[in-house]
């Protein structure tokens, strides 16, 4: 293979990766070219061995880049076309149209991004005419509903069955399903970007394929947490884990005094009291957050994602609290403090969902609060901080405001995290407006960014 040829190919890989939203710096590109000059690879496999370790940054990327290179070699001439169809050209179009019409439509759109964009625009205009300014806030959900984005996941199952019947081997089917899942994530991101831009500029002049490299995480910060694919849930769980680790460290550092390497003057003098010089050093111990925290978390269907993410968070930071009690509720309350203390985060959330006996019933705030004040009022002191995570939808039952009033009198403050926008507080069975009178600090938590802000103020003393 000529050097010129391999340089061209490497540049193509580089462009392809950047187009995919994978961060590859030009330094890495130039280093790869340097290595090519030095090693003069003779086959594409040799070339791949050079490209992969320099450009990859994680296990997933390591294999993905390997695959992409194989893929580019296989489809050398038509790779442009393939880029747009996400490698789905091999599927028989008839099967696709019959079994998975929504997916077929989405693939079609991806081949013609400008048409997709126009379609989005007109949909958005229609929605705006119908819902007014509300479109800006819940636009993501409205648009996803209009595009029927809940269907592809079901269609995927029937599609893989159909492909199996058509004689595909399992690995190929798996590869195709992952590509389609990737494609769905891609579309969701594009929609959320579209909405964000739409709410920022009135002119709606955005482009679907912006040239600047995307960092996948940054966009996830603005997607509503209640509407996520499984892949996004995994990524966000990771982000939350990292965020929690960061918080924990900040708090530890603040108390440990990192500037003095944890040396405590008082301890030092005490240790050396018997001598007339200072020889032994004393170190300060980590203090924990003084005020006890009690959490009541709604784990009913609509709140699942929030519960999942919160449990992930609390499971990482649990050791900085002096006293922590966690309760979950749907129609009645259950103490899960022991689980939180003993189980690792991944296991915790599944255990909670599995153990809660009445998970399929309706949310009953009245009963929950009554049970709490009857059984656990003894836990509460004037220093206690109570956090309630719930959307305040009572299913038209007794809202439990009397119990809440008792609580408010006794505790230091009540925090409330709700995913509902303020205009929803008056609609239907929502009692959020009533509850907001009792909450000392109330946060509307719809996205990851908002969750971070809310948690930050919870941890501040």
């Amino acid at each position, binding site marked *: 293979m000529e050097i010129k040829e391999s340089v061209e190919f490497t540049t193509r890989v580089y462009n392809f990766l950047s187009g995919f939203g994978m*961060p590859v*710096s030009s330094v890495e590109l130039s*280093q790869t070219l*340097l*290595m090519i000059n*030095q*090693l003069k690879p003779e086959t594409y496999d040799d070339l791949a*061995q*050079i490209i*992969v*370790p*320099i450009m*990859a*940054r*994680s*296990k997933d*990327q*390591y*294999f993905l880049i390997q695959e992409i290179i194989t893929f580019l070699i296989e489809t050398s001439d038509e790779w442009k076309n393939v880029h747009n169809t996400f490698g789905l050209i091999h599927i028989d179009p008839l099967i696709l149209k019959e079994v998975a019409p929504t997916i077929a439509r989405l693939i079609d759109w991806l081949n013609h991004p400008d048409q997709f964009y126009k379609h989005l625009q007109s949909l958005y205009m229609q929605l705006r005419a119908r819902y007014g300014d509300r479109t800006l806030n819940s636009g993501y959900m409205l648009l996803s509903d209009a595009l029927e984005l809940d269907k592809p996941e079901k269609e995927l199952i029937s599609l893989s069955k159909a492909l199996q019947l058509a004689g595909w081997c399992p690995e190929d089917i798996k590869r195709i399903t992952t590509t389609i899942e990737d494609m769905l994530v891609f579309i969701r991101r594009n929609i959320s970007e579209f909405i964000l831009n739409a709410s920022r500029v009135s002119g709606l002049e955005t482009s679907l394929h912006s040239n600047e490299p995307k960092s996948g995480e940054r966009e996830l910060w603005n997607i509503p947490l209640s509407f996520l694919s499984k892949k996004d849930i995994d990524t966000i769980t*990771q982000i939350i*884990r*990292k965020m929690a*680790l*960061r918080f924990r*460290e900040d708090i530890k*550092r603040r108390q440990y005094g*990192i500037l003095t*390497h944890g*040396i405590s003057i008082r301890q030092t003098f005490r240790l050396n009291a018997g001598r007339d*010089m*200072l*020889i*032994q*050093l004393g170190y300060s111990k980590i203090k924990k957050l003084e005020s006890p925290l009690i959490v009541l978390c709604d784990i009913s269907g609509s709140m699942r994602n929030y519960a999942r993410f919160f449990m992930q968070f609390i499971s990482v930071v649990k050791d900085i609290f002096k006293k922590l009690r966690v309760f979950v509720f749907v129609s009645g309350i259950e103490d899960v403090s022991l689980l939180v203390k003993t189980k690792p985060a991944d296991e915790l959330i599944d255990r909670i969902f599995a153990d809660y006996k009445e998970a399929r019933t309706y949310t009953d705030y009245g009963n929950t609060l009554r049970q709490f004040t009857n059984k656990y009022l003894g836990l509460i002191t004037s220093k206690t901080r109570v956090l309630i995570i719930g959307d305040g939808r009572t299913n038209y039952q007794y809202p439990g405001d009397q119990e809440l009033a008792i609580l408010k009198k006794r505790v230091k403050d009540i925090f409330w995290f709700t995913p509902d926008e303020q205009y929803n507080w008056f609609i239907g069975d929502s009692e959020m407006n009533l509850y907001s009178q009792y909450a000392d600090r109330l946060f509307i938590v719809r996205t990851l960014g908002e969750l971070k802000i809310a948690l930050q103020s919870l941890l501040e003393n």
Partner: protein
Amino acid sequence: MQKTHKFKSPEEITDLLRKANYISSDDISMAVYIASVLSKPLLVEGPPGVGKTELAKAISQSLNMELIRLQCYEGIDDTKAIYEWEYSKQLLYAQILKDKIDDILQDTKDLSSAMDKLKKFNSTFFSEEFLIKRPLLRAISSSEPVVLLIDEVDKSEPSFEALLLEVLSDYQITIPEIGTIKAMSIPFVILTSNNARELSDELRRRCIYLYMNMPDSSRQMDIIKTKLNGLVSEDFLNTINSMLSLINAQDLKRPPSLSEIIDWSVSMASAGVDRSGITISSLGSLLKDSSDQQKAFNALWKSKNQ
């Protein structure tokens, strides 16, 4: 000019590592080669027991370079990784020197001239004499190139990664009281991670990335053969191989890692055990879970009777 070791080609690395009893693969040799040519750290990720740490040891052995190892753990900080002032020694010296100061200041008339005189001794207490060198500083200040192994970076906290960045990208360390210490020789840096925590992008950007997977069965056999110094027969290797594939086919809680497989084959070879004489206790070096041992033993026993 900073001294550093450069390899000639990936093939040379494979040969050198083989001499150090480490069986490399094309991917591994290439990544090591690229890292050495570009003078960049090599970040090795992979499941436990596939030979990440072993790779660093083999490189240091084959190049005859010293191996400096920094084991990361939760709570590690700059005083454990880079340097620390020897506080108690400083305090002790301060006490002893107290009397001397009176001698020095005897003939000074006023405060300012006393200060001038004392200023001459300013840097005494913060000099290299009171500096405890930790692994990173040791690797940087060594006159000969060394292999620096930063083991299990993922066990440390995110703030510790930031400490590493200066060392990894510029091969220098800044100590506020002394100044910047630049490397006299560029160390060959290897970082390993089990991916218990996602490493930051800044760290990844500065490294060459290598994902090490469990070796395929032919490389695995090659490794076992080298570890047994080629003393065993081809038959024995085949038996081991077939037993391993049978054991791996079971639904195990903890599948055996490469290092455990090596331990086990060595123990099998030295005890002279063959397939018919296998007992549960002889699986102890391979499987570390009682239900796994039971499963594997049952499977082996069944296949023996067929």
